[in-house]
């Protein structure tokens, strides 16, 4: 019951905000420069749907490809470090050094290396997602109780057996949480890198609209980016609930 009431209040709050926004923009006849009305943004998004759709398709592909690549690398690397503890002393400091740089500061370098096509965006997304997933996977693998490991060892399980039957199931909820956070990050990084240079994509649309001082277009690109991000976040969240039922 309280959930339903919370939902109703939330919807009411969102409607109130949108209404106030629309009313303020219309009532005070604010120029698009200050704040375009919601209806104007929706209309612009509909009028430019072909451009925005193409841009969303490019950004979505980059984010998804980088996301898959980054997640695979992050989990594999964390698993390797757990299975081969000696690697840890070498790899972990290197990883921390790379991670100490704000992720967007790598964008110009990656653009120089991979060109301004989609490859550079995929590499940047993979970097950002990879670190998020790597750190949560490592924390998850390390989380198991020492005594459980000893117990399995005493029954003759090898390092791989312990990993497969104990560490991996224990780590999955944390890995999934990391992957959920990484969905948002993947789109942000793709868009930010596109702003620096690209042939297409939502970040590119935003950057061009800024240089043309087309405010409504910036807003409609942000709207599309937000919808894309929400959809991606929702899909990964649904997958998580479906497959990691024991958390």
């Amino acid at each position: 019951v309280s959930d339903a009431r919370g939902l109703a209040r939330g919807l009411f709050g969102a409607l109130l905000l949108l209404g106030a926004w629309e009313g303020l923009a219309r009532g005070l006849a604010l120029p698009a420069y200050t704040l375009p009305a919601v209806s104007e943004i929706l209309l612009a998004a509909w009028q430019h749907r072909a451009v925005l759709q193409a841009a969303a398709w490019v950004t979505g592909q980059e984010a998804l490809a980088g996301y898959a690549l980054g997640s695979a690398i992050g989990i594999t690397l964390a698993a390797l470090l757990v299975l081969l503890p000696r690697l840890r002393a070498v790899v972990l400091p290197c990883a921390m050094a790379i991670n100490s740089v704000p992720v967007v500061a790598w964008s110009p370098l990656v653009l120089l290396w991979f060109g301004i096509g989609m490859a550079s965006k995929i590499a940047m997304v993979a970097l950002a997602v990879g670190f998020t997933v790597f750190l949560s996977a490592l924390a998850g693998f390390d989380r198991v109780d020492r005594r459980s490991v000893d117990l399995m060892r005493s029954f003759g399980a090898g390092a791989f057996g312990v990993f497969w039957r104990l560490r991996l199931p224990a780590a999955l909820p944390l890995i999934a949480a990391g992957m959920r956070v990484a969905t948002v990050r993947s789109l942000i990084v793709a868009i930010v890198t596109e702003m620096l240079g690209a042939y297409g994509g939502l970040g590119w649309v935003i950057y061009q609209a800024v240089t043309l001082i087309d405010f409504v277009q910036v807003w409609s690109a942000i709207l599309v980016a937000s919808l894309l991000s929400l959809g991606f976040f929702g899909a990964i969240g649904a997958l998580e609930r479906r497959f990691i039922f024991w958390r």
Partner: protein
Amino acid sequence: VKPALHLLGGLVLAGLVWEGAVLAFGIRPHLLPRLSDVLGAIAATPGAYWSGFLRTLSETLVGFAAGALVGIFNGVVFFRAPLLRDMLLPIFVVSQTIPVIAFGALVVMWFGNTLMAKAIIAFYLTFFPVTVNTLLGLNAVDPRQVGLLRSFGASGRQILFRLQLPMALPQIFVALRLGASLSLVGAIVGEWFGDTRGIGVLLLQAMYNESVVALWAAILCAAVLGTGFYGVVAFAERRIVFWGAEQ
């Protein structure tokens, strides 16, 4: 003094490994220039790097401080006014999953290329997580402790400042650490929309000149700033929340 010495030793070692690896493996300067070249580039024009460093630092600090204060205040307001919370919190949570940094373009268009514009971007990237975590922390306080204090005649304000806020601090610091990284990212990306000073500008200029050495010099500055700022926040956390931090 000892941890500082260890840190210094680690840094010197890392620098030697960098220099040695480039020489030993013959890594092309296009991928990774020698550390001595990078440091030489900074030493050649220390003024440019120093002023860029200071500029980005002040943008980040102003935005972060404002975001932390307003975020904590907002969390308290939401805690005290459940109706407001139910109406606005869902919007906050949803806004966490959209690429808010895209609004950076709008902020720069509103405020021009001022320090203020970048500080505002850093502000709202900090402000959202701090609000949400403050509320989480306040909600987690044991109601029996509140009841005990109240039975001794403590006023609402006293309960807030003596019990609830201190108990929420570990959660708040989780968000502050996140905000420390995010606010720097916001400041750097904000500078890409055509500022003349700052680490973001240095990155952009180096990219346009295709100067990998200058790019690495700017990345190094960003790393020093990011790590230093994060370190200060983490240090404050260990000092203030001495009874145990959240991970």
